[in-house]
């Protein structure tokens, strides 16, 4: 091992502090969610129990956690699939200049930087002026796409910036049609990045608050419900929900990571004595 410079130890300490800073509140919540039945939102703990997790699954006084959870999942999946498909198409198209590509690029940047509440406001206004009903699956869906698509596209731009075009030429050379090239060559090669885009699409939607606020209509998505709960619920059930949603998010990442790992394992298993001889 190479010797470590002193700065390494200083920075390690800084990094540890940073982690503490990041995790502190989340851990606070996690701990508080194990309050006893008489516990409140703040310390001190009044007993230790899993009461609030049970309570989470019981009917709440107001609202509908699991309904909103379900909606968020469905919406997240809708956004995820759309983001992946549209980003890939966009990414492919943007590899080549076409009339209007500059304008479209700046629109993408605008979508990325526009304060979310403006989208909420604008889409809400538009629907009401057009006499249409806002609904999480229409207006909410569209409003969220203005946030996930720029992310997806930026990732795709980065991916295609590094994509070796000779793969496509090789495929064409071997008789693949444009569609076959996409299906059998381009998509499999960029698949790991697509998993990233999908993950981003899902979680950005799953956690999106501001853009959904005025566009979700009658039924809350999970973040709106949580927001509602912060104004309606005064029990650690809120924290139990926080803890559980964190675990859920972790499970999602875990699944995606496992998928990615499994894929590479399967490939790696094919042979392990690679490159032993010169030939």
């Amino acid at each position, binding site marked *: 091992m190479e010797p470590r410079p002193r700065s390494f130890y200083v920075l390690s300490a800084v990094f540890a502090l940073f982690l503490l800073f990041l995790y502190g509140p989340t851990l606070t919540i996690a701990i508080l969610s194990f309050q006893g039945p008489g516990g409140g*939102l703040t310390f001190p703990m009044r007993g230790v129990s899993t009461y609030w997790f049970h309570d989470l699954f019981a009917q709440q006084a107001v609202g509908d956690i699991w309904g909103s959870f379900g909606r968020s999942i469905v919406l997240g999946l809708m956004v995820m699939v759309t983001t992946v498909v*549209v980003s890939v198409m*966009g990414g492919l*198209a943007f590899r080549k200049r*076409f009339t209007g590509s500059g304008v479209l690029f700046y629109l993408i940047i*605008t979508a990325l930087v526009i304060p979310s509440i403006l989208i909420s406001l*604008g889409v809400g206004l538009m629907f009401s002026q057009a006499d249409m009903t806002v609904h999480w699956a229409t207006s909410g869906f569209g409003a969220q796409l203005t946030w996930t698509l720029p992310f997806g596209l930026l990732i795709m731009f980065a991916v295609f910036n590094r994509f070796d075009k000779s793969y496509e030429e090789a495929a064409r050379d071997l008789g693949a049609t444009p569609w076959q090239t996409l299906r059998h060559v381009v998509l499999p090669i960029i698949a790991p990045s697509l998993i990233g885009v999908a993950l981003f699409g899902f979680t950005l939607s799953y956690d999106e608050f501001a853009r959904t606020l005025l566009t979700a209509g009658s039924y809350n998505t999970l973040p709106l419900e949580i927001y509602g709960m912060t104004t309606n619920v005064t029990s650690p059930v809120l924290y139990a929900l926080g803890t559980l949603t964190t675990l859920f998010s972790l499970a999602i990442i875990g699944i995606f990571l496992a998928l990615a790992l499994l894929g590479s394992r399967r490939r790696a298993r094919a042979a392990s004595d690679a490159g032993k001889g010169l030939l």
Partner: protein
Amino acid sequence: MNPSAARLSSRRRAAPFPESVAMQSRPNLAGWLMVSPLALVLAVFLVAPIVLIAVVSFWTATEFSIVPAFSWENYDFLFGSSVTYRVFLNTFKYAAIVWALTFLIGFTVAYYLAFHIRTQTWQIALFLLCTIPFWTSNIIRMISWIPFLGRNGIANSALLSWGVIDAPLEWLLFSDFAVILAFVHLYTLFMVVPIFNTMMRIDKPLIEAARDAGASGPQILWNVILPLTKPGIMIGTIFVVTLVMGDFITVRFMSGSQSANVGRLISNDIALLQYPSASATAIVLLATVLLTIGILLRFVDIRKEL
């Protein structure tokens, strides 16, 4: 192949689909077809709403509805009130302070991960460790500071019991401190990720070359790493600045509703059904954000640096 040669050759191969005969005659069509879903989404959910907001900013409102008109009243009121200027100033203040802090922390963390952690496995593992808290609901992450910072919260209790302070610190919660703390907590990752990305793409021999030329650690940082990380810093800056400037919840929660930024002005107006007035503020905010980002984009070609 050396890096610049690689760059040259990739640029030379820039034309994506070698023009096959079929495509040559209508080079735009395929592109248009492929971006049409994207264009449609952006047209309907971005352009149209912005246009509508711009239009409505000239309308008037009643208690319960908005009335088409052409009136400068909303803007008059907005620019006529000293509160507006203070709130915009406050918005910039938050953006500037949060930017500085997230940059410092984000750069340090990314630097540590990219240059002090030696194996890629550890780099990825520690990086993921940084991202995990970001998968919790933002709102929950925010309010989780409250039991920590409150008058009788963990921080005060600890400080009291250690004898560091005699009376609870009031400014820990419901203060600018709390707002900035929460912002930093929420958004540092947006700085870490792009900076880490660019740093990972810095050729390691460059660092060795600098060391070979006698540069000390800080000199390498200043003369080599910092300039080469500029694109990542810019992208992170764009994220953080827009997120902070557009925020309206964090400020409300963490200041105990006592402070305001432009986002809150808008959301308050919306809450009170004052859409035209909200729209006018929104247009001014949008202009401000776009201007800020426009200036930032002068320093980095986002498309090339991705």
